């Protein structure tokens, strides 16, 4: 499931962007140092393969619906985690730019959920441990299916957490979790089965292909603890920094708006960046039922205890009406100027 820009707050989006960008930098160095220049075209072309593969469907028996390969796990098995992470990241970049899957800010989250998790959490901690050193059909199958299940569960948990921390959606955490996890259990199971089947096919035809990834299995070649720890620290630092910055600034911002416009913006103070902090604080206390329901009126009333209710109503109606009229006017202005610009530029084009 692709995370979307519209559901993200800048703090959450920015933090995870930083984590993903750091991982990309790290993996590039790492793959470059490996000096296996075969991998350079291989990664790019396999990324294109993933795209192509996702356009082909299969029917899921007994349901009448159809599914397609996600492929993150498959790529990790074929390329090893570092190269696979880069390949998956490039697929997501293209999806974000060309197919409007997710978005530019959400790219960080998507790279994390669909790239980082399979490559740096599931692969080393689940797949490698289960698969063992010697290739064995039964263990391989179990390892792949469990990896797919865990990978999709974690990915979906990622989406839920990112959405919830962002506070743009009003879905309560528990409800969202209950909606997302079971769906992804099913998706994970299908992904696991398909991956097993494809890996089996490849193994029959060209066993040496799977060797590229398994070469990495030798102990000592994986300073993975390093990368995981580094990036969690980086995330904490960036996230902490951003939220400090964010928590101070909006106050200043609102103060500025209040001064300039004479009244606060039409929004609850509980939204967005504030929501993130509020969520952080509120999480420990009332986790399941937390939502960002804090109407503007409450705070306004809180500020003016015993204020005239009627006057307040009128005030709010006024604000709303003014807002509506202004919005329509702005839109008209914007599109009007767009048209004028277009008209002005077209003759120039014709004459040239």
């Amino acid at each position, binding site marked *: 499931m*692709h995370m*979307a*820009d*519209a*559901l993200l707050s*800048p703090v959450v*989006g920015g933090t995870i962007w930083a984590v993903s960008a750091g991982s990309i930098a790290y*993996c*590039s160095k790492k793959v470059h140092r490996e000096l296996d*220049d*075969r991998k*350079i*075209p291989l990664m790019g072309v396999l990324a*294109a*393969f993933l795209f*192509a593969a996702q*356009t*082909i469907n*299969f029917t899921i*028996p007994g349901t009448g619906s*159809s599914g397609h390969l996600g492929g993150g796990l498959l790529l990790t098995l074929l390329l090893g985690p570092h190269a696979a992470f880069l390949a998956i990241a*490039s*697929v997501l*970049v*293209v999806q974000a730019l*060309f197919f*409007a899957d*997710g*978005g*530019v*800010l959400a790219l960080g989250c998507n790279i994390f959920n669909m790239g980082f998790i399979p490559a740096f959490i599931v692969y080393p901690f689940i797949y490698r441990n289960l698969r063992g050193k010697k290739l064995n059909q039964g263990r391989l199958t179990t390892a792949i299916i469990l990896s797919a299940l865990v990978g999709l569960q974690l990915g979906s948990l990622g989406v839920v957490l990112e959405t919830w921390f962002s506070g*743009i*959606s*009003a879905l309560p955490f528990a409800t969202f979790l209950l909606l997302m996890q079971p769906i992804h259990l099913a998706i994970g199971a299908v992904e696991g089965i398909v991956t097993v*089947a494809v890996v089996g*096919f*490849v193994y029959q*035809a060209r066993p040496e292909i799977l060797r590229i990834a398994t070469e990495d299995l030798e102990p000592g070649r994986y300073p993975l603890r390093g990368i995981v720890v580094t990036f969690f620290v980086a995330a904490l630092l960036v996230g902490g920094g951003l939220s400090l910055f964010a928590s101070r600034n*909006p106050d200043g911002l609102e103060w500025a*708006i209040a001064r300039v*416009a*004479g009244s606060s*913006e*039409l*929004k609850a103070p509980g939204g967005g960046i504030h*929501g993130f902090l509020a969520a952080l604080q509120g999480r420990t206390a009332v986790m399941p039922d937390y939502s*960002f*329901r804090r109407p*503007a009126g409450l705070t306004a009333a809180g500020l003016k205890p015993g204020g005239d209710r009627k006057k307040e109503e009128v005030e709010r109606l006024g*604000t709303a*009406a*003014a807002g509506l009229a*202004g*919005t329509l006017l*702005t839109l008209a202005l914007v*599109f009007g100027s*767009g*048209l004028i610009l277009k008209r002005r*530029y077209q003759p120039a*084009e014709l004459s040239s």
Partner: protein
Amino acid sequence: MKIASIHGALLDFRRMELLAGGGTALHRLDPRAKLLVTLFFIGTVVSYGKYAVTGMIPLVIFPVVMASLGELPPGYIARKIALLSPFALVVGLFNPLFDRTVLIHLGPLGISGGWISFSSILIRSILTVGAATILVALTGFPAICRALEQLGTPRLLTVQLSFLHRYLFVLIEEGGRLSRGRELRAFGNRGLGIGSFAPLIGNLLLRTWGRAERIHAAMLARGFTGEFHLRRESRFGGRELLFTVGWSIAFVALRFWNLPQLLGRVVTGITS
């Protein structure tokens, strides 16, 4: 995706490339300027609070101006934007369910916070998707890769992106041929299950692998030793600076002043 829509996606992709080949001043602008401004725009959009609706509206000026100056077909861009992230919309639709406190009264009509925040999500989607679409249509993928690299993205990733872009068409078409072969020999849904899917994907994978080996051979044959040398051309001049700084100031200004509110007050004479 069914074959038809794969085809559609491919056509769409090509159409975007075609648009990116245009010759307007915006097309000629250094891609870094466009990329930075787009990122800044998206940052601005998401920085609004969850109930922000009117405040965000003036930001529409960015996609509208870019699309008209860049002579992009408005219908096409609108259609691309209409394919909003279904996930965001579905999640957003829960807002009215869970957030029922009435925040605004428009005459007898009470609008709940949930509907307001849902509208906000809708507007965010339109703005962010629109900006990204316009960026690609005005710049083209290879130029975006170049800009990414010049802005510090590791070369390995941008090289990946170029390869992905180069072989995307080739492989989607190859996959399309394979799966057409399968569909023509399937009866209804029979024969389209995992039993035939795995060998098909496996085949595509093996062919892809072989192709990567041949590409690598071709690279070696031309003196490739693991380093990617690219020509660098920098055109980030005054125009680019003006473009970047100008838009940035505009975004900051629009972010701080709620233009529709101000305008509305002037027009309706309501002051509060």
